[in-house]
């Protein structure tokens, strides 16, 4: 797995229930900043493609909310 592929993984919205993406730990500080910028740009594109204007981050949060039994 090269650095660009690790960055692409970290820039995605998937996160395990216990927190950090495992690929995040394999990136140095500069690569983590690049992953942040890729995610920022990607979420704008995703939200624009979504019929309700939601990014994959927002969809992931909503899925967690609707899976909860109470607040």
């Amino acid at each position, binding site marked *: *797995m*090269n650095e*660009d*592929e690790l960055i*692409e*993984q*970290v*820039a*995605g*919205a*998937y*996160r*395990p229930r216990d*927190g*950090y*993406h495992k690929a*995040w730990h394999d990136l140095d*500080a*500069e690569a*983590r*900043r690049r*992953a*942040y*910028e*890729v*995610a*920022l*740009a*990607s*979420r*704008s*594109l*995703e*939200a*624009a*493609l*979504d019929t*309700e*204007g*939601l*990014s*994959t*981050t*927002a*969809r*992931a*949060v*909503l*899925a*967690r*909310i*609707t899976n909860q039994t109470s*607040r």
Partner: protein
Amino acid sequence: MTDLDVHLAAIVAGDADAFGRWMAGSERVVRESLRSFAAVVDVEAVLQESLLRVWQVAPRFERDGRPNGLLRFAIRIARNLAVSEVRRTRSEPAPPEDLDETLVEHAREPDPLLRAAILECRDKLPPKPRQALDHRLADAGAHDDADLAEALGMRLNTFLQNFTRARQLLADCLKKRGIEVS
């Protein structure tokens, strides 16, 4: 600037769709407020946890009369969580806690013209990048990329390369239309 507090009453009443509409306008601002932490915490993980906490505590949120009160509250939650993460995982100091208040003024509802342009650009993508893009968007963070790749019969690195290519081709197509994605 859009005042996203128009969704507050419905959110407090437990309307998850209203919270979705609030996130559509607020997510980017909260994410940008975490930029200085990008090298030391997994911003995506902190952001998702912060948004979840906003939903959980929204019924107890009290407005101060200024617009976008829930967004300011969300930024405080996110930055406090990021600081806690830095303290939990590292010994080095956290980034400064002062916040650029002008960030809140960037709250926006989705732009329908941008959507039309992106849809046109997406339709021009080659099949494999389009497949990777569509599959990851439809999954919305539910599964890791290894699972998504396997479902499409691709190797993980091939899937990621196709997704990167899709994102770059979309950005290039939009740039030709005078739209910069950042």
